[in-house]
């Protein structure tokens, strides 16, 4: 019994081990780049089985998002290997069924989102293990009911969203949630509940927010104290809900009750209910006419002295001319009149006497102008803090339009059609901090416009029609730190147009028509600017200029130059980014840059984020060293740049790089050493690169599959270029032992070559080789004996071999010069020293062998003579016999090479230029030449058996 267990353990270790050493890429999920393998998202995959999606995820997963997948069913134990999971999103799939143990082992799970699926029912034990679940969303499914004990294990549930289902039976819901002691929010909107009828269980006391909107409630039908603990109750859009339904229901603890689009008569309701009238939301309760409002005010006044917020959405209020809110209780919070049909607010006339109001909101109405308000009798709203006129149709804002609200800090006029903004419109608003004028039709800003708004911090002017910034427009905005001028038509700034913005840190100028970057405007805020957005302008450089407009922006951290319209930047001046040492992120996408100069990014030492997505025109060649100073870069996006190769020279220095996106490029192979030179890399996107499944990429395959730190996005879906059915991660590399084949080729080819040639050469050149060998040995032994200083014993120094016709020369020239005249060589002459009576051949042999040298006096006659030939022969036999070369050739008369027979020329080839030429009478200085000749000869004779090379310059004179 004991034996199988260790084996099982071993097996498990093996499995875990495999998991650990295996690569860090996932079939269907992407690990968020900086999440340290904690967050994964698996979006838009084609797999229908959740196991295919989650099986290869590591245990460390905390956040997991699985959305937009065609999943239908989650089988048992699907997430059992992810015990640390805390957030799980399974929404937007097509799930219709869970096996009952689908979420087994997810004890840490806190947030579970199952919305937008096709569930119609759930199994009872589904959430059994989710002890720590706090948020559960089941919205937008087709649930009709769910089993009673379904939430039995989830004690910590805080929020339960059941919006947009088909639930009918409220009492079942109550039954199943009644024990959830921590439940705070229950959303049951858009179901088919008809009543709140329930059996004798009650809602948990902790439940404070209950949403029941868009149901078919016509009656509450609940116990009187049922809603005792609820703070927020949303009953809106229950079209059949009557006032009567609230009869006797305890609503005393409610802080907010929404009754929009019900049949509740608000006056009657307030009368019959014990609700705190201030907590009712009066939106959509049919308070159409001023008289309705006045009536409400009266009723409220009877109950309350002051009311905090009044919200009157969707009441169809057309005008407020006759409304006097002075009858209402004092409003201390906001008054919200959004979603009505107001055409005018008449200088807040109707608010007379409501001086305590802090916030006034009129969004989504039909306001068409904010007129001049100074002339009328003023009722100053000193406490009003915020004015909100968004989403109206305001065309003009008159002078002094806000004179009665001098203390507002926030003014929102965005999303209107303001074309006429009176230069004096904002006068008096000294406290203004946030002014939103974006999405209007403003064309001009005047010097006066913001003259008094000295406290303005944020100014939004995005999406207007401003084309010029006039001189001094912002000169008083000393405190402005964000200026948003994006989406205008600014073509230029007047001189000192941006002066006065002393503390500006964020400047958005994107989407304008700027044609160049003029550094002179930035001097006012060059020490404070951190964000500069110049995207989508018309900046274009035609030729390489050395301009560096950003050189003084020392604090700039964000610079966007992406998407210059029409033609892009075209040329990127190599000095453009000079001085931006603190820049953090740089956007250069969509710019049609022709060439990225290799020193363009040299100064960006602090850069962390660089996107060059689609930045370039056509195929880009990244030059080596372009990223050499970007040592802090962590994210590099190189999508769609037409990169053809990826090399270590280019990417070698990016030691901090963690995220590298290279999808949609055109390289066919990626050298692994370049990737390995990025030590921190952990996210690599290679999608849509035509990687070829060839032996070239053998190492890349190995790297991507096995690298433990680098996640290759959707590695297992990368396909082979040549055959779409093959996958990159497992193409057959079995055939890739190219190197071995190469070595085998070289070795066998050399072997075959030698094996063929050596026998052939042996057969064909045997004698030549053998002769060379003897010559070599003689040369060698010669040197050897000289090294050992061995003196040889010879009878004569030299045997002179000559033809009798040259006897005269021998006797007259040679003999005196060698035997007399200061030198004491002993010569052997045949007529003098040959033994008498001996065979002439023997004589020759003994002469040759008893002399150290044999000097052959070559002449035509000599060569013709048989005996002389024999003497040469014998002398050269000593070469073979004793491995000594004793022959010295003296050529008496010029003999043309053609006349020499093969043997002699053979010698000549072998012993190149070892002969001495007797200077004839035709040379310039015969006496001197002869002197030299004798010296040479003596030297040659003395030099043991050494072969003398007579190649001195002087000697050349004597050779014909």
């Amino acid at each position, binding site marked *: 019994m004991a034996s199988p267990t260790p084996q099982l353990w071993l097996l498990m270790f093996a499995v875990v081990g495999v998991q650990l050493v295996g690569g860090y890429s996932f079939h269907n999920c992407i690990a968020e780049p900086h999440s340290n393998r904690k967050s994964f998202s698996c979006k838009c995959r084609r797999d229908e089985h959740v196991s295919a999606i989650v099986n290869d995820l590591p245990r460390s997963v905390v956040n997991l998002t699985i959305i937009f997948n065609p999943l239908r069913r989650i089988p048992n134990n699907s997430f059992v290997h992810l015990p640390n999971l805390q957030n799980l999103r399974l929404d937007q799939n097509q799930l219709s069924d869970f096996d009952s143990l689908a979420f087994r082992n997810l004890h840490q799970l806190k947030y579970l989102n199952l919305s937008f699926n096709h569930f119609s029912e759930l199994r009872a034990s589904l959430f059994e293990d989710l002890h720590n679940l706090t948020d559960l969303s089941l919205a937008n499914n087709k649930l009709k009911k769910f089993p009673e004990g379904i939430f039995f294990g989830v004690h910590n549930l805080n929020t339960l969203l059941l919006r947009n289902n088909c639930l009918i039976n409220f009492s079942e819901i109550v039954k199943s949630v009644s024990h959830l002691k921590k439940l705070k929010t229950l959303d049951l909107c858009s179901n088919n509940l008809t009543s709140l009828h329930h059996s004798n269980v009650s809602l948990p006391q902790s439940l404070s927010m209950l949403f029941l909107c868009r149901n078919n409630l016509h009656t509450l039908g609940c116990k009187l104290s049922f809603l005792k603990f609820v703070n927020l109750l949303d009953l809106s859009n229950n079209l059949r809900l009557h006032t009567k339904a609230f009869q006797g229901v305890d609503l005393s603890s409610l802080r907010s009750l929404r009754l929009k689009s019900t049949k509740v008569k608000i006056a009657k309701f307030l009368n019959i209910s014990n609700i705190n009238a201030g907590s009712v939301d009066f939106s959509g309760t049919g308070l159409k006419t001023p008289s309705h409002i006045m009536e409400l005010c009266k009723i409220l006044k009877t109950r309350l002295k002051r009311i905090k917020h009044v919200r009157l959405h969707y009441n169809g209020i057309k005008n407020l001319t006759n409304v006097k809110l002075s009858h209402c209780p004092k409003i201390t919070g906001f008054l919200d009149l959004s979603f009505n049909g107001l055409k005018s607010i008449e200088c807040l006339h109707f608010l007379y006497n409501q001086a305590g109001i802090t916030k006034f909101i009129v969004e989504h109405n039909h306001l068409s102008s904010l007129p001049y308000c100074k002339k009328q009798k003023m009722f100053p709203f000193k406490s009003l803090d915020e004015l909100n006129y968004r989403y109206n149709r305001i065309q003009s804002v008159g002078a002094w339009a806000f004179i009665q609200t001098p203390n507002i800090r926030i003014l929102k006029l965005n999303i209107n059609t303001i074309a006429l903004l009176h230069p004096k419109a904002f006068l008096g608003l000294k406290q203004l901090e946030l002014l939103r004028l974006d999405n209007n039709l403003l064309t001009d800003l005047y010097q006066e416009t913001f003259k008094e708004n000295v406290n303005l911090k944020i100014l939004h002017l995005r999406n207007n029609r401003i084309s010029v910034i006039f001189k001094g427009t912002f000169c008083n905005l000393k405190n402005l730190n964000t200026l948003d001028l994006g989406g205008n038509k600014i073509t230029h700034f007047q001189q000192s147009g941006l002066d006065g913005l002393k503390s500006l840190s964020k400047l958005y100028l994107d989407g304008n028509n700027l044609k160049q970057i003029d550094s002179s405007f930035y001097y006012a805020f060059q020490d404070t600017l951190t964000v500069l957005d110049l995207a989508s302008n018309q900046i274009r450089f035609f030729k390489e200029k050395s301009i560096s407009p950003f050189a003084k922006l020392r604090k700039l951290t964000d610079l966007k130059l992406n998407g210059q319209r029409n033609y892009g930047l075209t040329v990127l001046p190599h000095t453009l980014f000079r001085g931006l040492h603190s820049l953090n992120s740089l956007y250069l996408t969509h710019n049609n840059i022709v060439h990225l100069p290799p020193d363009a990014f040299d100064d960006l030492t602090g850069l962390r984020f660089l996107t060059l997505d689609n930045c370039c025109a056509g195929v880009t060649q990244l030059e080596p060293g372009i990223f050499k100073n970007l040592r802090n870069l962590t994210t590099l996006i190189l999508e769609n740049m037409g990169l053809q190769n990826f090399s270590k020279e280019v990417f070698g220095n990016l030691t901090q790089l963690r995220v590298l996106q290279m999808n949609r490029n055109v390289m*066919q192979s990626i050298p692994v050493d370049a990737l390995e030179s990025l030590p921190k890399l952990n996210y690599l996107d290679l999608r849509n690169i035509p990687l*070829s*499944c*060839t*032996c*070239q990429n053998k190492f890349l395959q190995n790297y991507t599959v096995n690298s433990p730190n680098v996640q290759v996005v959707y590695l297992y879906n990368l396909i082979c270029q*040549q*055959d779409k059915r*093959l996958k990159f991660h497992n*193409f*057959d*590399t*079995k*055939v*890739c*032992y*190219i190197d*071995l*084949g*190469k070595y*085998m*080729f*070289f070795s*066998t*080819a050399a*072997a*075959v*070559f030698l*094996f*063929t040639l050596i*026998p*052939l050469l042996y*057969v*064909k050149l*045997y*004698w*030549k080789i053998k*002769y060379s060998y003897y010559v070599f040995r003689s040369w060698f032994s010669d040197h050897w004996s000289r090294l050992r200083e061995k003196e040889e014993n010879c009878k004569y120094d030299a045997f002179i071999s000559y033809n009798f016709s040259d006897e005269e020369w021998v006797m007259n020239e040679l003999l005196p010069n060698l035997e007399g005249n200061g030198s004491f060589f002993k010569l052997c002459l045949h007529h003098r020293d040959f033994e008498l009576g001996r065979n002439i051949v023997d004589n020759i042999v003994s002469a040759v062998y008893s002399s150290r040298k044999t000097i052959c006096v070559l002449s*035509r006659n000599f*060569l*013709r003579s*048989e005996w002389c*030939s*024999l003497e*040469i*022969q014998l002398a050269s036999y000593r070469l073979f016999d004793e491995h000594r070369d004793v022959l010295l050739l003296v050529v008496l008369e010029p*003999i043309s090479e*053609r*006349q*020499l*027979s*093969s*043997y*002699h*020329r*053979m010698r000549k080839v072998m012993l190149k230029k070892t002969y001495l030429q007797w200077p004839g009478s035709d040379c310039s200085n015969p006496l001197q030449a002869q002197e030299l000749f004798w010296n040479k000869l003596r030297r040659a004779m003395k030099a043991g058996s050494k072969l003398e090379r007579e190649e001195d310059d002087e000697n050349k004179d004597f050779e014909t």
Partner: protein
Amino acid sequence: MEETEAEQLVEDADRIAAPPNGPVNELLNVDQEDNMQGQMEEFLGPQAQYNEEEEEKKFYRRKRLEVIKNVVAGSFGAMMVYSVYMGLLQMQLTLHYDTTYREVKYSNLGLEDIDRKMLMGINVTPIIGLLYTPVLIRFLGTKWMMFLASGIYALFVSTNYWERYYTLVPSAVAIGVAIVPLWASLGNYITRMAQQYYEYVNYKEEHVQEQKKLPKGACHSYIIVFQSLFFLIFNLSFVFAEFPMRLVLHGYLHESKHVLANVKICGAAITGIIPDFNTTVLVNLPRSMLLIQVESVLMGFAFIAMIIFLLLCGPAYRPTEEIDLRSIGWGNIFQLPFKHLRDYRLRLLCPFFIYSGFEVLFALSGFSLSYGVCILGLKSLWLLIVVYGLSCSVFSLLALSLLRLPRWVCLIGGAVVHGVLLVVLMALTVKPDSPQYLGPLLVIAVLWGLGSALNKTGVSIVVGMLYAEEKERLDFVYTIYHWWQAIAIFIVYLWSHMPMRAKLSVLLATLLLACYCYWVMERRVARKVQHRLPRIPRPRHKVKGYRYLEEDNSDESDESDEEENEGDMTEDDDDDDDDEVVEEMGTRDEEEGAHDARPEEVDSPRARRRGVEGQQHRQEEEEERGE
């Protein structure tokens, strides 16, 4: 005329004078180059029991055995070289045909293109074979030519380890260069062995001892036996060539259903090799380690073949003969193959030479692919070729029947078989993937093998018999034979995209023409019509020795070396151009009258030219005498 005769006399006198008379000396002469040891033993051995007759008989028996060993070794060497070469080529072409293999292993290398270039190199280069083959053979000697060619084949195997444009294509061209010389020297070698065998059998005959021309027809039977033996062994190469395919690649090949998925029709109706053959034939790719192992095994066999040629094949000619062979001047050697084409016997055999090239290539490509693979799938290819090879090999023995029957039987028999088969094949159109045709196809393969065997042995035997007596023409004749065969192979290479019926028709037409021409030839030979044979010039030997200063021989080559020649012969001033002028002297020409006058005519140009043209011939290298 008189002068040549005079020279002849001198030469003969030399030859006879140099060694003392008697068979023992002949024996000595023979023995010199081979086993000095044996000679010494014989020389030193006790003379008492020395039975000259007996020893001589023993010696020649040993010699005969040596000849047989040479033939068998040569055949085995050639068989191995071709097994390795064809096996490797087939394996590589199959692998390279597969798209996946190509893509994965070599991506953009264009391996298919390289294969095409490689085949082109192998098939096109032999066309110029006629120019250099005899020069090469005579320079190296027959045995060494075979050795060199086997080395080139081994080099080809070696380059397949590392398939690149610059390895495969040069080695393929080298093979193309070596094909004709290899086959010419093989044919020469086998025929020569027959002559030697005859000499060793009839060592007592006078013409043998005097190294005269053999009597007509004397060694025909040996030629028949040796050629049959050669082809018996050589044709086994088809069998062994299939080993890599069967043992290694077989498991990786797709079933016929896959490879023939798009093929619509097979056999006589198709155009090209196999139209719409699937581009992937491998189920999965073989490990490259496996391929390297296979190649290493093949490499080993190639080495063994080289060693066989080197060690087991004795020389075809004695050194003196070899020196004579190449001493006729390189210009002559270059011209003589062309001159031999004037011989009507060779001319009339040319169609048969061509056909014999056609048929073997057709069996290996046309039949086995367009019929075999197309009908049965790639997995049956090996079976067809093995059966073909076995039948070739076995039926080569049928040629032995020529010992009794007239020589035309063999050739015509093969032609009849092939003729019938061609007609059958022309009618055979089958649906692809029909395994039920395995039987008929095997029968066709066997019969085609029978025809091939008869054809190959027949042609070789006929050529051998026609020139049986002339040992110094054999290489020219075989060069012509194999050159025509190479031309035929080139044509087959060119026509691969033609309709099958056109190919078959060409084959049939060639066959009929060949038969007719052969019949005409035999008729003429029977009527003893004189054929024109170029005169082989007498060998010229250089004199070298004591004489260091040569008086007037200025056209000496540079590369001669010293040499002690006892003979001290008079200088032989025969120039090559003399032979050019005095051509076809040896043949019994019809126009004898015209030729009688010529020697006188040529005397004067010879004298005139000596001074002028001597310089040009300096380059003509003279080889040293290899002793």
